[in-house]
């Protein structure tokens, strides 16, 4: 299982984050919120200076491209913990991230 993170940040901003935190998984940049809209996750004016951003959400997608698990929060501070996501992945028999 590969984690893939998506936000409205530029590739450069994400690279800074990635370098600082030592992440090795892909971080994708959805500047125009096209994909965020596709997943109906747009938080209009939710960002700084009223920018449109993504609401926090997590999806486990299997090899066929089917969603197997989804977590939508009702509070921007409350998100699925890494432990919770790994547990879900194990339950659904995804391999652990390498």
């Amino acid at each position, binding site marked *: *299982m*590969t*984690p*893939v*993170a*998506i*936000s*409205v*940040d530029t*590739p*450069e901003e994400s*690279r800074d*984050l*990635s370098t600082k935190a030592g992440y090795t998984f*892909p*971080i*994708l*940049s*959805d500047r125009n919120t096209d*994909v*965020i809209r*596709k*997943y*109906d*996750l*747009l*938080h*209009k004016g*939710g*960002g*700084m200076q009223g920018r449109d*951003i*993504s*609401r*926090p*959400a*997590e*999806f*486990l*997608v*299997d*090899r066929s*491209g*089917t*969603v*197997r*698990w*989804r977590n*939508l*929060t*009702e*509070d*921007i*501070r*409350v*998100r699925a913990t890494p432990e919770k*996501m790994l547990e879900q*992945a194990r339950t659904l028999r*995804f391999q652990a*991230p390498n």
Partner: protein
Amino acid sequence: MMDCRYDRPAMARRFNTPLWSGLVLVFIAIFSYLFLFVRWPMTRDVPWTAFVLFVVALALMVIGFRRTERKVFASIVMTIGIGVMAFFTFGMLVISKLLPASQGSPAAGAKAPDFTLPDTNHHNVTLSQLVAMPGSNGVLLIFYRGYW
């Protein structure tokens, strides 16, 4: 003689330690949440550390208020403290939950909409290719708010 003259007004205007430490504690509660406790889910999801410190801060301010004869001044300080606590609590319990509904996001069993987006090196990444990569066993998509 001299001691008496200078002591009395000094006594009357003695520093109100409980009142001021109560106010300072209000800000410590908020900043400790924003810069420290926000890092762990246990202390982030519900800001109980701040709420516990708020209770102590309020108790200190009440003690300070009862002790002083300058009630008007003390009530102004208390109002500021309570106002700041109310604002923080409102932000945590109300503003942070102001999320638009998401009826259209793919639930379990639905097809994940395919997409292509640039990674940190401006290389395009396509979901359908990523999930089908040799050795892949699926993908965990994490949408997040960004800029940190």
